[in-house]
């Protein structure tokens, strides 16, 4: 597990056309916002384009040669993506983004809870008053609002693990019970970079028979993840955060669960038999892929996975930790900077969030932007976490494999400049 040496990163960077552009009157772009969305290498752009120029067609529907080729490309992408996260191809459902993936689970549970016209196998997904869904205080809205809505629809109760001052999960803050039906949590916080204790959370959920939903949006793009070994029931992640296209994401579900779960979106390709009087559903994963899918995007995501495999996820992770270290060390020397989240590197990924005394995050971000440094400011779709720390907004720097130590070192200088500009230095 060695980190990437600078020459490797510089070589990599030339694969990403956007990284050589300039912003704000000629400054080189320093893109530290990969937690929001990552950039795409030529290899991914080329894979999608060559699919579109050679094989584009509706998948799983036609019998002509293009349809065969398109179906092969789409299913081959599914197989490679499944292997990338240690799953079977039949356990990978293509969705438009992770948000849809979580909604898919929540609505399938909602549908199960209504019960009419469903078989007994869907009973394990049913919720009602008295039942509980447990999340954490650090969740992205995508792993929070769908559960609130599910609880609103079914009468179940939403509870959450709280977060410690260090940005870790307080495992004592919730006692799971027999009424806990779902435990849903992020693998890695998109704000603080905290890696959650998956094994322990799974153990506790299993002990009460709850389903485990892993929001792997910030882990799959940044570290090796083997979903079968993690023993979670469901997981989601988005293509656009892992050097792949927007408009495609993955819902992983254990085969046995997908087999039993009622559908969410309905329409073409997810059916077995359709009569006006009623229809039956296809087996997974097709059951969950209604309509013409994001074909070229799946192909692009397949290429992204190949690209990441070429580097090695161990190396990606090590490199990002190195960048986090540089960011944390640099910021530690700037007076008035408070890191939100863990300052040590254990159980941590690359995102670094902070506030600056006397300068609002928006204003810090503006000064950084003026220097070509793109960071994200605001609540990063994790508003409850920000409330927990008594702040409305933070500055977040987040990385991917194409970022250099040099780039990250500019962060602290930029923050210093912001303090000066606003007269708090």
């Amino acid at each position, binding site marked *: 597990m060695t980190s990437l040496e600078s020459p490797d990163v510089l070589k990599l960077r030339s694969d990403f056309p956007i990284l050589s552009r300039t912003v704000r009157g000629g400054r080189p772009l320093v893109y530290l916002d990969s937690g929001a969305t990552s950039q795409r290498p030529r290899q991914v752009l080329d894979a999608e384009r060559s699919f579109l120029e050679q094989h584009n067609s509706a998948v799983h529907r036609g019998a002509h040669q293009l349809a065969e080729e398109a179906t092969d490309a789409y299913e081959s992408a599914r197989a490679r993506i499944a292997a990338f996260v240690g799953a079977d191809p039949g356990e990978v459902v293509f969705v438009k983004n992770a948000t849809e993936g979580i909604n898919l689970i929540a609505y399938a549970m909602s549908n199960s809870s209504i019960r009419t016209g469903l078989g007994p196998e869907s009973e394990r997904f049913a919720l009602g008053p008295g039942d509980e869904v447990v999340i954490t205080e650090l969740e992205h809205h995508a792993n929070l609002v769908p559960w609130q809505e599910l609880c609103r629809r079914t009468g179940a109760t939403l509870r959450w693990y709280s977060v410690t001052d260090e940005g870790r999960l307080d495992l004592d803050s919730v006692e799971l019970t027999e009424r806990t039906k779902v435990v849903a949590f992020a693998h890695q916080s998109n704000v603080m970079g905290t890696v959650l204790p998956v094994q322990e959370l799974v153990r506790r959920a299993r002990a009460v028979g709850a389903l485990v939903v892993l929001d792997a949006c910030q882990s799959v793009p940044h570290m090796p993840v083997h979903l079968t070994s993690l023993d979670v029931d469901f997981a989601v992640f988005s293509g656009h955060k892992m050097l792949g296209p927007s408009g495609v994401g993955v819902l992983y579900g254990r085969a046995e669960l997908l087999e039993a779960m009622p559908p969410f979106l309905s329409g073409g390709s997810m059916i077995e038999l359709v009569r006006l009087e009623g229809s039956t559903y296809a087996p997974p994963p097709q059951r969950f892929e209604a309509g013409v899918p994001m074909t070229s995007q799946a192909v692009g995501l397949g290429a992204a996975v190949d690209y990441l495999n070429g580097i090695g996820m161990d190396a990606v992770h090590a490199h990002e930790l190195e960048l986090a270290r540089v960011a944390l060390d640099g910021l530690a020397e700037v007076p008035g900077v408070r890191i939100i989240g863990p300052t040590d590197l254990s159980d941590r990924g690359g995102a670094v969030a902070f506030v600056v005394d006397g300068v609002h995050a*928006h204003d810090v971000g*503006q000064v950084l932007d*003026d220097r070509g440094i793109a960071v994200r400011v*605001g*609540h990063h779709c994790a*508003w409850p976490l920000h409330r927990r720390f008594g702040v409305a*907004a933070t500055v977040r720097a987040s990385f991917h494999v194409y970022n250099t130590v040099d780039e990250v070192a500019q962060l602290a200088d930029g923050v210093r400049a912001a303090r000066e500009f*606003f*007269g708090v230095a």
Partner: protein
Amino acid sequence: MQLEQMYQEIILDHYRSPHRAGLREPFDAESFQINPTCGDEVTLRVKLDDAGEKVVDVSYETLGCSISQASTSVLTDLVVGQSVEESMRVLAAFQEMAQGRGTVEPDEDVLGDGVAFAGVAKYPARVKCALLGWMAFKDAVVRVGDVPEKGTVR
């Protein structure tokens, strides 16, 4: 450095020493507004004269960036003492400038210190910051007519 384009000296002045800050009694209506992208908040109160035709006081508390704070401060300078009708004209002019992407030439006679925000209009992500207090003011004025109990928070 294009920063000075956005952060004109006037803006920084208002930011450092905001006018009419704080929440005051009496007031006719209060509005709470939030910027969903960044979580910034403003609570703003309006006091009109007995006829409901003139703006007598505007008081506020903000949790936000320099732009939103300064713009709320400038707002109070521009509307306190004016007729409600005139204040809405100013608001419309400010909004037009802020959303104009830098293409709208602001009228200093109408907007006073508000013209300093012309540079912000070139940064679309910050337009909402500049407008936060103004939207609260508009909402509060509407509420004066609407709401039976005073100071209801939406």
